[in-house]
């Protein structure tokens, strides 16, 4: 399984600010290797974030999202101590799920 994501979620005045840093090469499929052959595309395609069983954010990434994708989003309706669960899937079918507690 891929390396873990870092999830930082902070609550202020009822709004939860979530920052996620994922670990992924996000190969665009545009680069060539030393022999001149195209390095095939390999990148995260889908991402979902849920809190208390409710989906709070979803994303579809193309190959143009930078390596080690960063995402910042905000939502209301959760409290300190609740967990933000983030899952992603990539073009090879590799998956990763991590949690971050709202502080």
């Amino acid at each position, binding site marked *: 399984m891929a390396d873990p994501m870092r999830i930082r979620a902070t609550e202020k005045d009822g709004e939860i600010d979530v920052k996620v840093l994922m670990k992924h090469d996000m190969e665009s499929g545009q680069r060539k290797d030393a022999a001149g052959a195209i390095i095939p595309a390999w990148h995260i395609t889908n991402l*979902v974030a849920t809190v208390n069983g409710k989906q709070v954010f979803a994303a*579809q990434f193309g190959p143009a999202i930078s390596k080690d994708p960063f995402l910042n989003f905000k939502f209301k309706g959760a409290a300190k101590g609740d967990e933000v669960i983030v899952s992603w899937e990539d073009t090879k079918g590799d998956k990763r799920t991590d949690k971050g507690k709202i502080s």
Partner: protein
Amino acid sequence: MNSKRRKVLQFTALVSFMAGSGLLSEADAAEWNKAAFAAKSMDDVMKALGGGLPEKSDAVTLKAPDIAENGAVVPVGITTTLKATNMAILIEKNPYMLAGYFDLPDGTEPFVTTRVKMGQTSNVYALVKADGKWFSAFKEIKVTLGGCGG
């Protein structure tokens, strides 16, 4: 092996098992929109996303640098006063225009920030979907060192 490390490994093993066996509910991710991410023009991207061509709007704010120091990592943010259900980032001169597409359920703020690769200086579009209609703002971001691998 010290007990703390063992605890971490046991927890990781448990989570992996649970995730693998579908016990951890990964909320349904929408099907990856292959057509949208393979599109080379805004027309084709919007055809694949649905909802028609975006209308330029002051209610959409694109937060991005004027000059990208590193085309491989360009921070782009979208905010809006509209009640956004979706957002998207399009980079005009990239090999494929659509960089990312975002779903904002009820209760989620109309805000997203991420980092994108830009192959060359290009217009970057922030798209916001509200009430089934797309709205946009754009700016040109100058790139000195292209980020697509050229």
